[in-house]
């Protein structure tokens, strides 16, 4: 007889451990369909547990789970508060969509023999990310960073069946990721050496007693650099475009929807907890490091995307600029800025996941990396996919009645209350420039006649079902913005300790 309350109480651990433990099972099953079912079960379980955790947290407040029963700072602690609950719901929700989509994608993009193992890898990536956002221990975070890195690297490398460039993309990802992770470890080591603790909450407390300490500043800088690599913040983004371009379609969906977002969340958390007491230094990091980086990222990403022909690369560059918008929200250093970032984290992952799904639906059929001209006349052959892509592109542009608009007005409002006019101008200018890359896709889909390459394309229900759901979300939460906005508000107040 299972004691339900024990199960309920250990949900914070289970939501990470279950996908990790299901991974070997999925590998051993060796029948792709069964492995897929196991992966699906794993992701649905994560969704279930994260949603119930989210509800618990919003009702009763923060949950601290002590691994093995050892109290922090001696043992490892898992923290589910409004912010991390927001993230696990997002990650596991996108995980479910991506897993549903993955079946068809892997079936055609990966050899049959490898498929079971790939689902194992998939679960590892998912579990790693969930662990990443919930752990309250700086070193444990590193371990999960590595789990998610190594599994995503392998998943990216599997794109080599269609295009061998996936291998170099994966290697770069591995190398840059490993250097980033090592930077993170150096940073943790520096902070550890002056405080003696690894628990993030304890660390924050100890650091607040120190003032003007070189090691603290350097340590935090190293941690931030390490996380910037994972979050693909300019100029440490170099792994991202080719990784997104050459990975199997489903992997691109998973990475864009969850991996960078988890890293961004951890970055935000570190920024606003560890930097608690270092006012001047916070300003230096935010205003002189992150802010210029995000501005350059926005311009660079947008302009590269405008001139890019390969669609996946185009989307990757667009991600780069959208990540810039997220970090701009953080650099404002106000509660409303952080809230805007959270809203955009959620919204951008819904948009980009849907776009990568839609584009993947085409490249799965064409068995190649598609370019913008391959979209010509798509509306005739794949009306459902085309409509979904169109809706999501409009959302990406921030057109009213879509989630992109919600992101944009909250970001603009945050910038307004901060009074930073140049940033305001940059945001509106680049969101206009985004029309340049987004519209060429719409024009090709709707306003051109089909060409020989697209003539045999068909809508595939197995692929477009998750896509339809995501596009509906794009509109639904654009009109009825309450849930996301409120959740983002509590999330931002959970990590933003400063006087709101």
């Amino acid at each position, binding site marked *: 007889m299972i004691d339900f309350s024990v199960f309920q109480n250990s949900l914070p651990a289970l939501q990470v451990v279950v996908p990790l433990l299901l991974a070997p099972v999925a590998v051993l099953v060796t029948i792709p369909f069964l492995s897929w079912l196991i992966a699906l079960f794993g992701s649905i379980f994560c969704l279930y547990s994260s949603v119930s955790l989210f509800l618990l947290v919003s009702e009763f407040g923060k949950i601290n789970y002590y691994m093995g029963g050892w109290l922090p700072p001696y043992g490892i602690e898992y923290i589910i508060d409004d912010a991390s609950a927001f993230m696990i719901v997002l990650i596991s929700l996108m995980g479910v969509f991506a897993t549903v989509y993955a079946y068809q994608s892997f079936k055609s993009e990966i050899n049959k023999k490898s498929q079971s193992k790939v689902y194992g890898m998939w679960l590892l990536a998912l579990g790693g990310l969930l662990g990443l956002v919930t752990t309250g221990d700086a*070193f444990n975070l*590193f*371990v999960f960073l*590595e789990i998610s890195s*190594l599994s995503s*690297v*392998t998943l990216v*490398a599997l794109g*080599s069946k269609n295009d*061998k*460039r996936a*291998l*170099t993309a*994966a*290697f770069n990802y*591995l*190398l840059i990721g*490993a*250097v980033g992770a*090592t930077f993170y*470890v*150096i940073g943790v*080591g520096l902070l*550890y*050496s002056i405080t003696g603790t*690894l628990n993030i909450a304890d660390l924050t407390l100890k650091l607040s007693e120190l003032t003007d300490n070189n090691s603290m500043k350097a340590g935090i800088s190293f941690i931030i650099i390490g996380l910037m690599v994972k979050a693909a913040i300019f100029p440490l983004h170099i792994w991202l475009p080719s990784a997104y371009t050459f990975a199997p379609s489903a992997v691109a969906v998973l990475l864009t929807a969850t991996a960078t977002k988890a890293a961004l969340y951890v970055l935000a958390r570190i920024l606003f907890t560890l930097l608690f007491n270092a006012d001047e230094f916070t300003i230096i990091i935010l205003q002189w490091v992150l802010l210029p980086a995000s501005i350059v990222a926005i311009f660079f990403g947008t302009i590269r995307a405008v001139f890019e022909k390969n669609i996946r690369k185009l989307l990757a560059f667009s991600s780069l600029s959208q990540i810039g918008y997220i970090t701009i929200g953080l650099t404002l250093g106000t509660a409303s800025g952080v809230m805007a970032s959270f809203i955009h984290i959620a919204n951008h992952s819904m948009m980009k996941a849907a776009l990568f799904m839609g584009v993947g639906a085409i490249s799965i059929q064409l068995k190649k990396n598609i370019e913008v001209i391959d979209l010509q006349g798509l509306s005739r052959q794949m009306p459902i996919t085309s409509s979904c892509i169109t809706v999501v592109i409009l959302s990406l542009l921030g057109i009213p009645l879509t989630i992109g608009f919600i992101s944009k007005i909250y970001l603009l409002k945050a910038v307004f209350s901060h009074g930073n006019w140049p940033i305001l101008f940059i945001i509106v200018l680049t969101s206009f420039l985004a029309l340049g890359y987004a519209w060429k896709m719409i024009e090709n889909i709707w306003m051109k006649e089909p060409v020989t390459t697209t003539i045999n394309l068909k809508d595939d229900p197995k692929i477009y079902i998750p896509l339809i759901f995501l596009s509906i979300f794009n509109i639904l939460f654009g009109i009825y913005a309450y849930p996301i906005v409120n959740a983002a508000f509590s999330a931002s107040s959970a990590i933003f300790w400063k006087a709101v």
Partner: protein
Amino acid sequence: MIHGILGIWNYWIVIILMMTGLFIVISRHNLVKKMVGLTIFQTSVFLFYISLGKVQGGTAPILTGYKNTLYSNPLPHVLILTAIVVGVATTALGLALILRIKNEYGTIEENEIASFNTEENSK
């Protein structure tokens, strides 16, 4: 001041070693050498951690049973045990990737691969 510098000189050595590793990662084009650089970089970071745990006149953190024994701090050791294993895992995956790259491209020199890829892009 002199005392201070003497007390932290060990860190500086470690820093130099780290930077040598990082230098190899960035400057070399040979992928295997990059991995070697990464290994050196990471091992130097381990040195940094372990030197943190040292206590002057202490012994290894294995309980001797005597009272008043001064033990070095076990926590950095634990962390580094984990980190070593993670490092090897990274190396293994990296080498597997390098083998595949060699198989597909016929070379493991980064610049040659890059020019190969740009050709592919312009096709």
